[in-house]
């Protein structure tokens, strides 16, 4: 019999070896074939008296088992409108039940873990009676479900705490953090670490040595390490503190975290059979909500597609970058040099003065030293990384580069000058990228001999931390340049979105509406803390005033002035422009000079500048938090829709990914477009109409939305 997911071989000792090798998947994941085959094998083992026990391992070296197929879950969800909660429960409970059958089948089952073991992979492992893991620090074991708004739904919330103690297990469940084999051993999650080629033998040896087919939690006198139940003071303290600590992180936007806490809290007062039932109820609740599906779609499915370059022109040959010419060694240039060298790319880091170029390289040195201290990087790799960066002032050093990225002053003249100088030495037709965040690519391309080879490659600061790169296609940019830029982004392991040329492109343009709307509200006399907190509590990465201080008030002011000059009559003046103008005039430039919307005292946390209220006295009537939140989020979402209308961003997927990874839009929404879909186009339009009536044309609903409303359509299918 041929198997599509789990091979079955019986050896001479009567031990069944089950090897996971899932057809059609680059990495082993749990799909329907996997479930039905594992189920059949366990039944075979249980029913055949000649079989002593079973060992589960993987036939792949990249992963043992990387969890459930989220596409399968999304697919199931697509049909959920017709499914009752009971049916969704039954569907999700089936895996829980299957793993419970593994541990109660009556025969000893061991697992030999030889690679990445995430989610359902770890849950299956914990349902085995004996666990051996390969001696390889790169192996990660963890339950990352929470990161896509789910909870572990196949016993993870029940078995992990029963193995390692409730208090210690909670961070793994609530944050989805991983453990390596050594940590897994000390956490009592595995029994043994062995060399990779011995793990199956060790697992078999355990069975032959009389390993018992029973789990500790099915024993009468079982006690959870570290205490259990609502009568244990340790546990009481844990459950008083953990929700508050969690809310500090989540701002209560991620119901999965509360569901995890509850599954653990309730489940650990019950026997396993009932505990997993409770877990599956909470799992089902997440599936029935809107947050998990939105998060799965954007943060997992579509992000993976973007990482695999879904927007890459198909007919272009792979064009990896070998030698990067980095023009400008300022903050951005230095960061780009670092992430490129980290990916093994040779970097020529050029600046006007050697001092600046060296300083740019020092940025990498500092990061590498930090990595060495934290043992995130070996000395050898550190040396290699630094050796790849060559600081210079000599354009001749750019010879042989196959990609140029320019990150000099945001001044068209300066940029044109640099472009000309570089073009003189680089290979003819070399792809040339600009990291500009404000200047039109089409215009900049004119100073390059091959406009079709000119493209925008827009990074975010700090480059080493921010995961997104916005690729901007100018009017004349060709497919070769796009392919090259995307291949480069993949090389440096960042996530690209592809947008078309426009003022502020996609991310900067939409992002700016967030602090601008905050300043509009400030001008109306709304309490600054209410505005700031509403942004943070809505799940935005940073509050609107804090982020404006980060950007710099002076920069905001200049962008505003430039936009005004460029748009002329079309410029829509808002109260925020005066607020920014006022702060600029007062010399409050933001974090850079330690005064902006905030005060930045030396040894204290920053706090909102009390002077704001002298200039913008509090109104007697304050709006609700809900209203403030709507203004902040809807204003951004409307600008995103306008960008789609203007073809600046061409796909909802890119719009959502760009928003979350580019400017820190609330991840729980799945992005602004997902948010509009979830609210419902009709409701969203009505709410925006009401906002427009009260607060002006910034909330004017685009015609496209009205059309969608009358068609009854949505952005995502």
């Amino acid at each position: 019999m041929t198997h599509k997911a789990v091979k079955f071989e019986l050896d001479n000792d009567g031990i069944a070896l089950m090897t996971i090798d899932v057809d059609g998947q680059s990495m082993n994941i749990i799909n329907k074939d996997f479930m039905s085959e594992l189920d059949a094998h366990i039944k075979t083992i249980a029913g055949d008296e000649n079989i002593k026990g079973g060992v589960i391992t993987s036939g792949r070296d990249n992963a043992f088992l990387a969890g459930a197929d989220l596409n399968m879950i999304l697919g199931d969800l697509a049909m959920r409108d017709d499914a009752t909660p009971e049916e969704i429960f039954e569907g999700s409970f089936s895996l829980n039940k299957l793993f419970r059958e593994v541990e109660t089948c009556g025969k000893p089952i061991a697992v030999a873990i030889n690679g990445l073991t995430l989610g359902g992979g770890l849950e299956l492992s914990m349902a085995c009676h004996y666990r051996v893991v390969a001696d390889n620090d790169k192996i990660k074991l963890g339950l990352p479900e929470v990161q896509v708004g789910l909870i572990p739904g196949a016993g993870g919330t029940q078995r992990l705490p029963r193995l390692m103690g409730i208090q210690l297990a909670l961070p793994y469940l609530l944050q989805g953090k991983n453990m390596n084999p050594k940590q897994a051993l000390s956490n009592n999650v595995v029994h043994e670490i062995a060399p990779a080629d011995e793990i199956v033998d060790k697992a078999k040896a355990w069975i032959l040595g009389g390993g018992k087919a029973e789990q500790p939690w099915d024993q009468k006198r079982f006690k959870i390490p570290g205490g259990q139940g609502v009568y244990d003071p340790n546990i009481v303290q844990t459950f008083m503190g953990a929700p508050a600590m969690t809310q500090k992180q989540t701002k209560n936007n991620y119901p999965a975290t509360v569901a995890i806490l509850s599954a653990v809290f309730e489940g650990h007062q019950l026997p396993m059979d009932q505990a997993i039932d409770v877990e599956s109820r909470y799992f089902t609740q997440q599936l029935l909500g809107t947050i998990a599906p939105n998060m799965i779609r954007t943060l997992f499915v579509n992000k993976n597609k973007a990482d695999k370059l879904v927007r890459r022109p198909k007919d272009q040959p792979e064009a990896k970058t070998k030698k990067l010419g980095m023009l400008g060694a300022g903050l951005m240039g230095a960061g780009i040099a670092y992430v490129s060298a980290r990916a093994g790319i040779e970097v020529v880091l050029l600046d006007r003065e050697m001092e600046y170029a060296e300083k740019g390289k020092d940025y990498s040195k500092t990061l590498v030293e930090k990595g060495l201290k934290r043992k995130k990087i070996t000395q050898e790799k550190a040396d290699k990384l630094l050796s790849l960066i060559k600081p210079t002032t000599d354009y001749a050093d750019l010879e042989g580069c196959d990609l140029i990225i320019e990150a000099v002053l945001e001044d068209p003249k300066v940029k044109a000058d640099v472009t000309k100088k570089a073009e003189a030495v680089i290979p003819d037709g070399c792809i040339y990228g600009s990291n500009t965040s404000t200047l039109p690519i089409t215009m900049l391309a004119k100073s390059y001999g091959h406009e079709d080879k000119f493209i925008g490659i827009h990074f975010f600061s700090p480059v080493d931390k921010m995961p997104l790169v916005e690729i901007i296609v100018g009017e004349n940019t060709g497919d070769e340049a796009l392919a090259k830029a995307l291949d480069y982004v993949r090389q440096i392991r960042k996530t690209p979105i592809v947008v078309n040329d426009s003022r502020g492109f996609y991310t900067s343009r939409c992002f700016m509406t967030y602090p601008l709307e905050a300043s509009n509200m400030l001008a109306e006399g709304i309490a600054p803390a209410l505005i700031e907190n509403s942004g943070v509590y809505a799940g935005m990465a940073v509050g609107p005033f804090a982020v404006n201080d980060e950007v710099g008030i002076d920069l905001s002011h200049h962008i505003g002035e430039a936009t005004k000059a460029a748009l002329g009559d079309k410029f829509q003046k808002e109260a925020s422009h005066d607020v920014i103008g006022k702060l600029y005039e007062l010399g409050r430039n933001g974090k850079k000079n330690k005064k902006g919307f905030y005060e930045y005292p030396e040894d204290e946390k920053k706090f909102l500048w009390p002077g704001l209220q002298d200039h913008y006295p509090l109104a007697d009537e304050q709006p609700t938090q809900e209203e403030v939140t709507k203004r902040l989020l809807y204003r951004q979402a409307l600008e995103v829709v306008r960008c789609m209308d203007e073809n600046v961003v061409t796909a909802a997927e890119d719009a959502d990914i760009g928003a979350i990874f580019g400017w820190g839009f609330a991840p729980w929404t799945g992005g602004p477009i997902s948010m509009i879909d979830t609210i419902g186009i009709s409701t969203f339009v009505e709410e925006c109409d009401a906002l427009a009536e009260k607060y002006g044309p910034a909330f004017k609903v685009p015609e496209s939305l009205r059309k969608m409303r009358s068609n009854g359509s949505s952005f995502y299918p």
Partner: protein
Amino acid sequence: MTDAFIYDHVRSPRGRGKKDGSLHTITPIDLLSQVLVAVRERNEFDIADLDDVVTGCVTAVGEQGGNIGRFAAIMADYTDEVPGLHVNRFCASGLVAANYAAARIMAGQADMMIGCGVESMSRVQMGFDGGAWLFDPQVTNKIGSVLQGISADMIATKYGFSRDDCDEYAVLSQQRAKAAWDAGHFKGAILPIRDSIGRTMLDHDEHMRPGTSTEDLAALKSSFNDMGELGFNSVIMQKYPEIERMNHVHHAGNSSGIVDGASAVLLGTEEAGKKHDLKPRARIVGFADVGTDPSIMLTGPGKSARKALERAGLTKDDIDVWEVNEAFASVVLRFCQEMDLGTDKVNVNGGAIAMGHPLGATGNMLLGTAVDELERTGGRYALVTLCVAGGMATATIIERV
């Protein structure tokens, strides 16, 4: 409606709620039963006419569990015929016990009742009874559950009470308690507690620190910074998004003391009083319980006071004596702010910051203090109120007769 009258009230002194506290070696049931014995001896009524013993107790587990009032009554030789009922409205339990006893009389369903309360905080640790509101994630998430001290600090932050304001109030409480003790204002109510061989264990409130100055208090570190930073600040601040930063002002010196104590009030109809030749001292005018935001939790007293006043057809100007439990300084300051009262009319004999707050008994004690103060000053109406965990409050209005 039948009138319910207060005929007597007795309370134990308050012992420090620690292992070195003078009442630590006495069981809570013994503590309460000594108070019950005193009520009976002082009033010489026929026990057969007593309808029920309603007992407030908050941490009703272990030796305070299982309806402690019923068995304290038996231990006090109230005979097997007197039933007992346990009530728990957290910090207002002792007042609610008296209210419930009064309500039975007012409704014509009883003639003579005892409302009492007990808490031996040194023996049964506060919070030991757990509760879904403290640790069931579904519940804590819904209500925004935080430590009470964080709630009290939020009251100070939101309503603008500084650390100095709270410390000054705490010193006032200490000075007033000392003055009240020195002047003998508690003499009529205090029952010295004795051990089983008759030795006096305690005859005064031992938590008091009469010499405390604002400078002394200024030296204390605020208690809830760390727990706030851990996450509780985030929880409560999300309920009050206009608040930028928490101002942690409370510490052991301006919060209520943890103590042991018991208290009882004897209530009855006019006829019952006549029958047993008892002198009525105050009439229960009315009472009210309210719910408020369970996260900030302790802002209910004003609402409960207004509700009780309204039901009674009175205004705040009719009230001569105010007893507002000093759970935390900010609670009293907020009450005075909300009711537009100066602190000079509130808690004139000191309160729980100085003398301590034996959870289940405090409300009962405050009721007795109010009766005595009305009699001492010749005032007419008194209002007693307590903030209550979980966002509740109870208020009772009495009239001197």
